């Protein structure tokens, strides 16, 4: 910790007395970032930042694989008939496309965000269980690789869709090894997710820094916390169902075999009891991402913070009681119950949309790349949301379920929102993770290509579905307009895929430039911006006092009465006079090691030692 002169602390008077975070940070390299530098370092790391980066990089690789498979699908569907692949390969391709995107890209990307950002946002040195965290990452990586092995196994990859309805997914319906590998893969990644959820819940519950009450946590952390609970509820159900399915296939049980007294509908209930919360497990972290971004680029606080938290809780709760709307067409479910709960979920989601708009309302908006992508998220999300309300009505769903209308719907809510919010997150936190900025100009090109490509690919799918094109078909009859619409979608996909080129250029250029972004390039709000970029080992060398959900904002405007959380700047000054206030939080002894991390002895004895591991 370097000593900081009082005059520097209170900011540069030319900048209207705004306090800059960089003034508080050590510049002598004492707490420089320590990402592993060797292969062994990466294989053995338990650091939440290294594992967070590993999660995100791995999920991006799976996004590329899933995207390539989507390319095969769009190429095959560009014309009627079978041109590119055989029907069997096609079935494997769309199964693995869906499974990779849902299980290996979207959910783990959220876990990557949780890994990297949750400890930073609540002022903790790491997650609660770092070795468990490393274990879950390796399970995820191995599980993902096992799924792809299906393509080289006898009989090809699993070809029964990402929800694997028996009896088609049973031993008679899918005899190949690919199906078993698929089951094993989901079992491993599901276990990995459950463990990560335990880790996040323990961290958020027990490791918040003093002053970080639950209702001062950033919305992203709230969303990841609620997501973790949903994972805990949903993933074990899936794991159980998968074990039953694998037992049916390998050990001759008959859970789902209707020929021997089993029930194929039981699988659907178990799967969708997992599957619908899963949709929100995918989406909630990204709702959190944009809730971090809108306030920063609007220079406004989150509008209706508690309303947003309650809405997220309501979504989490309701999402566990809507599962059978995926099963309306079976005729085996209580239609009014599920129609009503599914429609009700639109209310908290609508509240979120209006809160986001309320955050921007009468703000001072600028449109840097993260804000562009966040707005893109909002558009695609509303587009997918309104079709979701339509599908919640069985009268409409009977016609549209299992068609391209549903494909369009969930690519808007799970594809578009995830992709847009993911890039919003990458552009937003890139300077924090790397210490460098991404190009604004390339970001703009990237955004518009993605916007055009995405909507071109998926909007026509609504029309295809209403016209009667079922999903999961390698071939379709060449009737009025269907072929043309498919061609629009395929061309759109090319634009969508090409939009990644400017992004990759931007990434390479940025990594070659010097790390000069500084701690707080966006003038943001939450605690991760109160440490250096990239953050030091165990994250913080000091912490500002936390009096609201945006401690960094409060600190920046400390000299302006009535702007930050404390109305009286004299009160802040008075607090600063206690040296303890600005003491380093975690002076570490040497390397990341087994030594206990203790606060310095100069700290007063009033606080009770209630740390998580004490």
């Amino acid at each position: 910790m370097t000593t900081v002169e009082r005059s520097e602390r209170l900011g540069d008077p030319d900048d209207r007395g705004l306090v800059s975070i960089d003034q508080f940070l050590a510049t002598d390299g004492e707490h420089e970032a320590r990402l592993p530098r060797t292969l062994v370092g990466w294989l053995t790391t338990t650091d939440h930042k290294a594992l967070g980066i590993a999660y995100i990089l791995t999920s991006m690789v799976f996004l590329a694989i899933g995207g390539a498979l989507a390319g095969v699908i769009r190429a095959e569907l560009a014309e009627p008939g079978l041109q590119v692949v055989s029907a069997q390969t096609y079935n494997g391709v769309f199964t693995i496309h869906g499974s990779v995107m849902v299980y290996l890209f979207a959910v783990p990307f959220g876990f990557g965000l949780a890994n990297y950002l949750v400890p930073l946002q609540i002022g903790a040195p790491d997650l609660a269980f770092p070795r468990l965290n490393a274990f879950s990452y390796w399970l995820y990586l191995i599980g993902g690789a096992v799924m792809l092995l299906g393509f080289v196994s006898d009989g090809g990859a699993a070809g029964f869709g990402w929800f694997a309805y028996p009896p088609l997914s049973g031993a008679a319906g899918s005899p190949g090894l690919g199906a078993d590998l698929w089951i094993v893969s989901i079992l491993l990644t599901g276990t990995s997710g459950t463990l990560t959820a335990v880790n996040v819940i323990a961290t958020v519950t027990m490791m918040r820094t003093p002053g970080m009450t639950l209702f001062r946590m950033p919305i992203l952390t709230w969303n990841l916390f609620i997501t973790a609970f949903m994972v805990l509820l949903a993933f074990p159900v899936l794991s159980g169902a998968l074990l039953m399915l694998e037992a049916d296939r390998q050990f001759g049980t008959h859970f789902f075999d209707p020929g021997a007294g089993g029930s194929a509908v039981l699988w659907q209930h178990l799967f969708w009891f997992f599957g619908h919360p899963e949709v929100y497990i995918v989406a909630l972290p990204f709702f959190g991402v944009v809730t971090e971004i809108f306030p920063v680029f609007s220079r406004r606080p989150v509008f209706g913070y508690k309303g947003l938290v309650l809405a997220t809780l309501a979504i989490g709760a309701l999402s566990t009681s809507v599962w059978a709307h995926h099963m309306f067409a079976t005729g085996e479910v209580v239609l009014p119950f599920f129609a009503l709960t599914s429609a009700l979920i639109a209310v908290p989601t609508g509240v979120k949309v209006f809160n986001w708009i309320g955050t921007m309302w009468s703000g001072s908006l600028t449109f840097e790349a993260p804000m562009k992508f966040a707005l893109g998220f909002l558009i695609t999300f509303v587009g997918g949301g309104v079709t979701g309300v339509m599908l919640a009505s069985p009268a409409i769903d009977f016609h549209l379920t299992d068609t391209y209308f549903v494909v369009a719907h969930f690519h808007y809510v799970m594809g578009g929102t995830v992709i847009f919010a993911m890039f919003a997150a990458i552009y937003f936190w890139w300077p924090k993770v790397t210490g460098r900025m991404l190009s604004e100009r390339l970001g703009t090109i990237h955004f518009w290509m993605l916007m055009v490509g995405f909507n071109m690919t998926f909007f026509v799918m609504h029309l295809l579905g209403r016209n009667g094109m079922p999903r999961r078909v390698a071939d379709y009859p060449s009737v009025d307009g269907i072929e043309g619409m498919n061609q629009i979608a395929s061309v759109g996909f090319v634009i969508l895929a090409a939009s990644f080129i400017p992004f990759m250029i931007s990434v390479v250029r940025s990594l070659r430039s010097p790390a000069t972004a500084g701690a707080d390039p966006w003038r943001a709000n939450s605690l991760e911006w109160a440490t250096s970029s990239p953050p030091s080992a165990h994250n913080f060398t000091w912490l500002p006092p936390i009096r609201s959900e945006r401690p960094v904002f409060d600190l920046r405007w400390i000299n302006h009465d009535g702007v930050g959380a404390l109305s009286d700047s004299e009160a802040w000054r008075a607090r600063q006079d206690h040296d303890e206030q600005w003491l380093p939080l975690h002076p570490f002894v040497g390397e990341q090691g087994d030594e206990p991390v203790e606060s310095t002895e100069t700290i007063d004895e009033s606080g009770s030692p209630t740390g998580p591991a004490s």
Partner: protein
Amino acid sequence: MRLEAILWTGVTVYFVIIGLIYLAVGGDTAGVVLLLLGAGLGGLVAGWTWDWGRRNGTRVEDRAEVDAADLAGLVGVYPTASLRPLALAIGVSAMVIGVPLGSWISMVGLAIVTSQVLLLVRDTDTQ
């Protein structure tokens, strides 16, 4: 801890209510059981948080007017870099992959898992 306890109690109450409603409208058995099990899951955490809060009182994290410095003393013990998580993950994966591919792989996996768990326990016991 009060707020956490209220939160998890709310989860429990929600699942009891929705489970009973679903039962009343003639829902399927699996769904009713899963919803009530969800209530159990929430209740488990709710009970733990209530009990923890009762035994330990208000934590420094839950007071609005405290600063980082008020949490004096030990804030955490963090593990060294370790190969155990990777080895354990390989072992667990081998155990599961052995089910379709041949039970000898499961045996190897079981051996890895056993050894790594024992080593992990030994690693942890350093104080």
